[in-house]
């Protein structure tokens, strides 16, 4: 299991702030997780295909090829707009 967090516009679009997610195999790439989430249909597919989607693993921004292990924290969010 990994914890997935959704922030800002994504959380509103998905009506979901956080979920526990079962990895298909022992480990998964972010790309694989995105494919599985997109398979839920809209709004998930739309959000997961957004070119600007950012993802962090254990609070560090990663590429979609990054590998996730059980116990990791995955965060999905749009481009940041602080400051």
């Amino acid at each position, binding site marked *: 299991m990994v914890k997935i*967090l959704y*922030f*800002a*516009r994504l959380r*509103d679009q998905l009506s979901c702030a956080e979920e526990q997610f079962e990895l298909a195999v022992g480990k998964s790439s972010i790309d694989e997780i995105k494919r599985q989430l997109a398979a839920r249909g809209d709004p998930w597919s739309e959000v997961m295909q957004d070119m*600007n989607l950012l993802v*962090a693993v254990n*609070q*560090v*921004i990663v590429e979609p090829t990054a590998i996730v292990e059980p116990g990791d924290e995955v*965060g999905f*969010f*749009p*481009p*940041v*707009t*602080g*400051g």
Partner: protein
Amino acid sequence: MIKVQQEDFSLASEYEALWADAPKIGAIVTFTGLVRDFNADESVTGLFLEHYPGMTEKVLAQLVEDAKKRWPIINVRIIHRIGELKASDQIVFVGVNSEHREAAFAACEFLMDFLKTKAPFWKKEQRQSGDTWVEAKATDQERATRWQS
């Protein structure tokens, strides 16, 4: 010193803390970001700032480390507010001290450019017709990439 907080902050206190490193330092540069008048869009009644707790602090701490590697700066203080804000409110403070002004100016601007593009904060404009998430600006990305050259 990095703080993410709802409460307002006092520039005077932050400045005093940076001044405390004198006489080792000769320069203090501060940046404060304020809530503007929402581009004269009268339907906007306020601003809401959300963040990714934990990651925000981690990213900012890394940026401070990066700045300290690049410039001989002594101390950095960063405060970013979250939650509901209204026009004219202080949003963000970055203060840097150093022996010389070049390092203090460069590090302060570097930190703001990367805070804007790397730290997980999101702004939502509150309107009578409903809330709208603010779009990221391409110009902010461009300003951050300047530092790579």
